[in-house]
């Protein structure tokens, strides 16, 4: 009986429900998508580790040559408290890498990075090998022409797991001893060739085994260590270094998402308010249209408060149904986006219920004016006695 006023005008009821539905859906979707993507980022951060510092050599006074970090400086960094692992790398230039002789024409156009590296790169980066082994002490001391390749390069060359195979660097044959798994923080490594510093010096004219980049693992006080490193490297001298924590970038990314998220929430809130105004508007018109019904109910003994409660109840029903539908639509959008982007869907049930309740609140507040108006109608004026 109490909702007969709503069911009698289904289209109108659906239309006034649209406001709360859209508002709640927008807010729920904004929060849900943000939470899910943040969950995704967090998982990624977890995977990468937030304790890896990347140190790049920066140019001092030595113009005309690539900036490097001296071995002595590498030693100083590794002796810092809280530092558990340090690996230096240096990217070599002007080396054409091909999978087999005669493929130069094709592969010259796609230069492959060749990186001279310390032996503990996999443990410092916490990246396992897909197959084979990494470069070891024997390779270093013997100057053996062996290489480890990145996973993408292995795929590109059609390298089979455990296959004994060589690759050609400017015509020199190197035996492939292992394949490094994907390096999420340095995707360029996925298509790189790794050599020992010994072979880099023997074959490619490197004077000193000085890296140009350090990977430093410091599980505690990561940022503090990152701040110290430039000074430790330069000791106040001209050869500098920049240290950064790459996962900070991801953190920053999640902050950007937060701003966007707040904007969407505000839009959703606005939609809710507009929806509320819509409810107030349509219900006010409804009160005028139903004035004779109100009059007759008053004549039949319904008090002013009964009339007010009846209209308020209709607003409440609109709010509840709109809130539930909005939460459902919002959850559906979050599910769709999470599905499409490969996130794990993060959606708080308490949040859903909370925003549905906000919709109920908005609807009830919006219903206050029309219901008061309905309660104040004078039955004599609406019944038009003859």
């Amino acid at each position, binding site marked *: *009986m109490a909702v007969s006023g709503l069911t009698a005008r289904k289209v109108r009821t659906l239309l006034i429900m649209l406001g709360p539905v859209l508002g709640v859906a927008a807010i729920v979707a904004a929060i849900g998508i943000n939470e899910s993507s943040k969950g995704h980022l967090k998982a990624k951060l977890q995977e990468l580790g937030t304790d890896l510092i990347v140190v790049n050599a920066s140019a001092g006074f030595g113009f005309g040559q690539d900036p490097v970090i001296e071995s002595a400086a590498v030693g100083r960094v590794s002796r810092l408290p809280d530092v558990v692992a340090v690996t230096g790398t240096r990217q070599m230039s002007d080396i054409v890498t091909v999978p087999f002789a005669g493929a130069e024409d094709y592969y010259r156009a796609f230069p492959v990075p060749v990186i001279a590296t310390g032996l503990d790169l996999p443990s410092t980066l916490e990246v396992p090998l897909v197959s084979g082994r990494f470069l070891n002490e024997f390779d270093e001391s013997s100057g053996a022409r062996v290489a480890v390749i990145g996973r993408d390069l292995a795929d590109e060359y059609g390298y089979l797991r455990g296959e004994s195979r060589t690759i050609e660097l400017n015509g020199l044959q190197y035996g492939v001893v292992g394949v490094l798994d994907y390096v999420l923080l340095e995707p360029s490594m996925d298509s790189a060739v790794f050599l020992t510093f010994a072979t880099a010096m023997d074959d490619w004219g490197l004077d000193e085994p000085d890296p140009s980049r350090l990977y430093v693992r410091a599980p505690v006080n990561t940022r503090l260590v990152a701040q110290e490193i430039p000074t430790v490297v330069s000791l106040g001298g001209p050869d500098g270094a920049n240290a950064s924590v790459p996962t900070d970038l991801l953190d920053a990314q999640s902050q950007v998402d937060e701003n966007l998220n707040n904007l969407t929430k505000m839009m959703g809130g606005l939609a809710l308010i507009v929806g509320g105004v819509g409810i107030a508007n349509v219900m006010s018109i409804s009160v005028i249209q139903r004035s004779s019904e109100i009059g007759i109910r008053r004549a039949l003994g319904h008090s002013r408060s009964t009339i007010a409660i009846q209209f308020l109840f209709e607003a409440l029903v609109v709010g509840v149904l709109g809130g539930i539908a909005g939460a459902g639509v919002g959850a559906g959008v979050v599910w769709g986006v999470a599905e499409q982007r490969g996130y794990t869907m993060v959606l708080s049930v308490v949040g859903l219920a909370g925003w549905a309740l906000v919709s109920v609140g908005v609807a009830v507040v919006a219903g206050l004016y029309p219901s008061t108006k309905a309660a104040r109608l004078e039955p004599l004026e609406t019944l038009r006695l*003859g």
Partner: protein
Amino acid sequence: MNPVGPDGADEVVLSLEGVSRIYGEEVQVSALDGVSMEIRAGEFVSIVGPSGSGKSTMLGLLGILDLPTHGVIRVRGVDVSELSDAERSSLRGDAIGFVFQQFHLIPHLTALGNVETALLYRGLSSRQRRGRAMEALEQVGLGARHDHRPVQLSGGEQQRVAIARAITTQPGVVLADEPTGALDSQNAENVLEIFHDLQTSERAICIVTHDLHVADSARRKISMLDGHIVSDEQLVRS
């Protein structure tokens, strides 16, 4: 529920004591001026008068849809000016039934639903409401059409639904405002007959009309002019 005393027929259901109703603040129009009257249980009263004579105002006051500017209105002996809106509404629902010229049925409810509206908020179960509403519909001969909506009913039938709605609460008095005014003569006659059938020693009927035929079918006729009662006569029924 019904104010039936030992001398049932003499029980005063409604009374006006020196009642005036003045509309407007700056320009004051006196619609009713110092009127006193009583309606007793079992009476069949008609109130007649030309437009502007104050009969509609009187009906609004008798039905306590309105309050007097001066004077006292008593329903079952209770001074209504001392009641809150909720109490007055409840008293109105219990003691008075209304029938209007324009029927005023709620369009989206069935005949039964319309009659049930009068029984809402009275602590009745929906089964009890349905039973009593059905009983009232049968009393006006519309039991078979209880599930029809107002648009599916003729004018006469709609007015009978309205009458069923007015009597389902078993009020002490039914106030009717031009109940035959919107009906053709045949339907008007039927409706008038129903009113006569409804009148019992416990229930008074009060019809406001300008149709002299309707007025003369009553047992007591009150004539009004310019806010005053000009005559109040008992009619001898032929």
